[in-house]
């Protein structure tokens, strides 16, 4: 059984039909990427999984549990956490407070502190700035914070929404390296990216989404050489 399974999911914003029957699976230990243009439904898929957007039809199951029975704030408890699009750090809270918010559902104080140390070892820059208000961080640092904050919930599945967006390519490389590292430590990752090439280089498998529908899926290597993908997303 797959860790995460979406079957024929339909979601709406008001009367706007954003997802039109999305089906996808993520297996334990994988990096799976979802690529597509702006507005194709990538973020909506992630928002549906984490319960911010409620699907009206189809099913979302995580480790055998139907997620539609949980409100958004309970889904974190199951082991799904998300790095939202545009990073979404709480700009007026300090770096430390942001990380504490990441561990909001946990009560094990000591282990939370260990995890904070772990995040700081992943991102030493954050440690230097732990008492700084996070709105003053640079874009790259905010991306680190958002990632670290998501890890604070000790997720089994990490959803990442456009981590490279708006970052200089040099930073992009290091962010992608971190994603690989996090995955190696045992966290499964579902990665949404516009930078299709980069995403396909680190992912095991990928899905291509267009106007709310999955149009193609394969392993990353095959996708990279797929003619349609190359034309539409890789610019060849």
């Amino acid at each position, binding site marked *: 059984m797959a860790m995460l399974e979406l079957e024929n999911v339909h979601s709406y*914003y*008001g*009367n*706007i*039909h*954003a997802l039109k029957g999305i089906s996808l699976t993520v297996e334990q230990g994988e990096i799976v990427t979802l690529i597509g243009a702006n*507005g*194709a439904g990538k973020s*909506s898929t992630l928002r549906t999984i984490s319960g911010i957007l409620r699907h009206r039809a189809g099913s979302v199951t995580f480790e055998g549990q139907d997620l539609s029975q949980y409100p958004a704030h309970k889904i974190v408890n199951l082991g799904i956490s998300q790095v939202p699009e545009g990073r979404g750090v709480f700009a007026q809270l300090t770096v430390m407070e942001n990380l504490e918010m990441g561990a909001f559902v946990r009560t094990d104080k000591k282990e939370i502190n260990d995890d904070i140390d772990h995040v700081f070892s992943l991102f030493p820059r954050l440690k230097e700035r732990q008492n700084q208000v996070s709105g003053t961080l640079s874009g790259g640092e905010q991306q680190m914070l958002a990632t670290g904050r998501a890890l604070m919930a000790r997720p089994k599945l990490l959803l990442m929404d456009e981590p490279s967006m708006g970052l200089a390519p040099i930073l992009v490389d290091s962010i992608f390296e971190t994603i690989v590292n996090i995955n190696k430590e045992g966290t499964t990752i579902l990665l949404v990216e516009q930078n299709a090439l980069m995403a396909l280089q680190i992912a095991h498998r990928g899905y291509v989404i267009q106007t*709310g529908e999955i149009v193609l899926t394969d392993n990353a290597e095959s996708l990279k050489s797929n003619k349609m993908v190359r034309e539409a997303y890789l610019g060849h």
Partner: protein
Amino acid sequence: MKQQADTNFNLKEMIQLGATGGVILILLSLFGMVESFVERDIIYKSLSLGIALVFGVIFIFGYLSAKRNGNAKSSVGIAAGLITGLVASAMLAILVYAIEPLTLRAVFVNASPALIEALTFGQEMIPGLMTLVGLSAVASLLGAIIFTLPPVPRSAILVGIIMVITVGTLEELISDVIVNIFKLFDAKKAGKSFAGIFFAKEGLSLQGSVITFVSAAVISTLWKLRSQKMKTSFNKLPPATQKSAKISTLVILSLITIFMPQIIGSYLSEILVIVAIYTLMGFGLNIVVGFAGLLDLGYVAFFAIGAYTMGLLTSIQLPQTTGLTGVQMTFWTALPFAVGASVLWGILLGVPVLRMRGDYLAIVTLGFGEIIRVLALSNFLQPLIGGAQGILGIPKPIVFGFELKTSQELYYLVIIAAALAAFISWRLRDSRTGRSWMAMREDEDVAEAMGINLIKTKLLAFATGAALSGLAGAIFAAKLGSIYPHSFNLLISINVLSLIIVGGIGSLPGVVVGAFVLVGLPELLREFSEYRMLIFGALLVTMMLVKPEGIWPAAVQKRELHGHEEDESGIEPAPA
């Protein structure tokens, strides 16, 4: 979930619903509504308004309980209604029983012997309360049974009951109107005896209530069964006939408008004039808030300026303190000055708030409104505008040598003014100006980038709104003959804002409907003056929860507020 409710007997939910009803009944009793409404008979000597209120609530909860629990089997629904009604009435009975031993009156002023007497029907405590619970059981059963009926008789009965209560409550006004109609045909006596069939000394007579109930039920049933057919058969008529039918409807409507004051008598005319003045202001504020999106909470300021200008320019007995003999203009000479002064202030107050948006604007305008009121009231400006004593001796308008003294005569003036305001609003809405306002409402920055001069456009909205409000103020001053600062409080701004929102923001018919509901109804129910504001508040909240787009929404707004419903347009909408 729904499946379960059908098969299981959901006792908990019935009791919960009953408890809600009980809390409402207890509150109504403690607010003093039951007690004071008992004085008022709906059906002479048989049913008082207070008792109707209590059993009405029980009836409604019985109906609701049946609706929630009786989807599958009517017997379940009826039992549910009964249980809910019993719980609610038991709570009320406990309250009544506890009043004296717990000396509740020390805290709750309305927990009085009169309340006990009303709810025990003048009997001893225990038998009285048993009667109360017993009658409640009947009322809730009735509610539940009516729910289980097929739709046509159900709605007929409900309409009948509502009409009996309405007619009974408004007995005095309605019998007046009947007599007045007969008077038009010089048959006052016949009118009186005709009204006598329906009405007793107070409230409906017994036969009157039966007739009202039956005729309301029959008419509503016929309407329901026939209206669709009539519409289609009307559409089948040749266009010329349709047109003449429409024209004759229009003629009849305008005839009614012209003879309205004679038909409805002086008291209702008075109310109508007040409604029309609010409508006039409503059209003005609708331009500012509804069209241009500038949330103005101090709108009363321009009303006050119009009124005071009119007062100062026309009064024949200005306060001595002013040291002025007054210019003593006529209404018509002063009117342009009154409107002009409002416009001027509209622009002056508009300039500092040009850059403000949303909440800022609301608060600043609220502040302006309060400042003007407090200043008008103060000793500081007393020498000029009379302070708390106000301005007296404002003459009535004279038209062709005829003085418009009573409301029945002033009616024509305000109706024409309101019609003018509606016409201006309508023409402006569909013009370049109206589009600029709406564009500004949607997105100020983009509107500016389209070449719209925000300053001119905003000030024009403020000025038009102020002009209509000033006009209303001027007429108001002339109508009363005297003005006091107390007439210009925040409540007026809030009333006007509420009426355009309840009517449907941006909608022109909505303004009229809103004014009738929020201004007319409370005036009609003046005898309940103690509870006017209570009902007003509850109505506003309920209205916003149930129908946020208003009673008669502008076409566009309706779609916005109910955007989550499927769009009928049928084209593929955009992803977010």
